[in-house]
């Protein structure tokens, strides 16, 4: 077991009020797993990760990270952990290898060993020719890969990535995902990442913990989570929402009806074959349907079902 946390909680005091950022999280991550903390901004993902990285002291609970007790042996945790924060951490005036070598030296590596390791990692992360470049001249993708290289310099067994691909264009993001997958496949490292991108969680993670308002509301493989919303989703755009709802609720094929923007969404077993008869039924009752949309459940739907709001709309929705 690489991470084991029990009842991990953190409250912040700000201007007299107490904010419960994380409310008692239990967490278990096996060696070699890629686990994602998925949730909207402000859900407590980063706070959880920062507690496990020894940057924040938990208000309650305990954890063992890479075999070391979080409270009693924070230095032991730090030695074995590679942490890549959301905003990265490079001085724009420094050169790539200066940052890489200094980072490794702070982990106790000799200058020569650090230099060799920097070269290896630059080659792996497509930064091969950039050792002598000043960091402010790097592209966003190159800088993000440098952030990751910094987290890997001391060959950690456990890697934390906080929002690894935020702010990157889709192509750079896909390229970064390849690197992250390679990371695990090559060295058998364990990765705990946070993300508010469903695509990222879906593409990278063996297991997802859905976190909302400081608590884990569901966990499982992406496929398991999607299976929790069995069936397909059919959306009808219509102005006569109330009449359509009454009709659809009574229909034998319909398992569930929710009101969405400009219409209704119903859950059925097989969208492709059942949508058209439903539409005909609405039409026969004189209800005009503007558009029809069939979707297979996504992680966003899982999130919507579990929390009553969409992940894409952010915390204020």
């Amino acid at each position: 077991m690489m991470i084991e946390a029990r009842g991990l909680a953190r409250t912040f005091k700000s201007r007299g009020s107490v904010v419960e950022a994380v409310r008692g999280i239990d967490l278990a991550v096996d060696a070699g797993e890629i686990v994602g903390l998925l949730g909207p901004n402000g859900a407590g993902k980063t706070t959880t990760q920062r507690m496990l990285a020894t940057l924040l002291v938990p208000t309650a609970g305990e954890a063992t990270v890479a075999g070391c007790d979080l409270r009693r042996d924070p230095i032991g945790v730090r030695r074995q952990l590679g942490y890549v924060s959301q905003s990265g951490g490079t001085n724009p005036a420094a050169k790539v290898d200066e940052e890489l070598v200094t980072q490794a030296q702070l982990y106790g590596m000799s200058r020569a060993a650090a230099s060799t390791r920097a070269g290896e990692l630059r080659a792996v992360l497509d930064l091969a020719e950039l050792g002598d470049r000043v960091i402010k001249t790097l592209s966003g993708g190159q800088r993000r890969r440098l952030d990751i290289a910094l987290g890997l310099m001391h060959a950690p067994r456990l890697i934390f990535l906080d929002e690894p691909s935020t702010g990157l264009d889709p192509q750079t993001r896909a390229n970064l995902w390849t690197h992250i997958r390679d990371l695990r496949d090559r060295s058998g490292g364990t990765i705990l990442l946070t993300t508010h991108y469903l695509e990222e969680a879906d593409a990278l993670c063996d297991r997802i913990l859905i976190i909302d308002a400081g608590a884990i509301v569901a966990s499982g493989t992406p496929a398991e989570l999607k299976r929790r919303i069995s069936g397909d989703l059919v959306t009808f755009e219509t102005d006569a929402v109330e009449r359509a709802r009454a009709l659809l609720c009574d229909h034998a094929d319909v398992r569930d009806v929710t009101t969405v923007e400009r219409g209704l969404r119903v859950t059925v077993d097989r969208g492709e074959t059942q949508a058209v008869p439903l539409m005909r039924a609405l039409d026969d009752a004189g209800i005009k349907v503007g558009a029809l949309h069939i979707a297979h459940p996504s992680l966003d739907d899982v999130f919507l079902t579990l929390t009553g709001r969409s992940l894409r709309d952010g915390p204020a929705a």
Partner: protein
Amino acid sequence: MTELDYYHYLRTLDAEPIEIAMFRDAMITFRYQMRLLLREPIWIVIVMVQPLLYLALYAPMLDSIARTPGFPPGDAWQVFVPGLLIQLGIFGSMFVGFGIIAEIRYGTVERMRVTPASRFGLLLGRVMRDTVVLLIQATLLTLIAVAFGLRVSPLGALITVGIVGLLGVALSSLSYAAGLWLKSEDALAPLLNMVSVPVLLLSGILLPMTLAPPWLRHLAQLNPFSHVVDGARAAFRNDLGDGSLVIGLVAAALLAVAGLAIAVRTFQRESA
């Protein structure tokens, strides 16, 4: 280096005494920070422009003041240059807090805080960089003052530069503490202004406090920097047995120790 080599190395690290680890981390940080500074060496020179202007445009006026009753022993240069060196020690170091705020923004501070590196080492390396730069500046300033007509014994000058170094340790530490605490340039700038002006006026740097009315002189006694300035002036007169030199050295050393202690406590706080 393979990962196995690395884990072997980790085990040897465990056997290392904490002081050695701390000093190694300080040296790593010092070299890294020095390299970054030397990439923009213009800043080292800019800090020296202000004291040089004082030397050229202010010191010549002191010749006539030196003849007024109440002026301390020594000629105008011997009284003014030590004050100027102390001023360099204060103003050359107190703005380093802006640098740590920039580093917080870059995320480099947090990145280094997740490494096993000693907090004290990370701080000390930065303070060492600032102090080395300051010592070079103080030495240059003294040599230039000699060219202007200052007469000073090498030992007296050396002791004074040492005092300036201690002040540098104190003020760059305190400035880092303030920067880590405030985390914002907009808050740090007014704080530094608020502190520096009374410290300067009550230190006797610009004019010796012996010229001050009694109430002002008593007030200045409360300012540790005024004792440091008195000590530096005694060293410049080559009055090495003077009690004010001992008091000045002790005051500077206490400021350095207190500054480092406050800064390392701030650095160890989780939210820093």
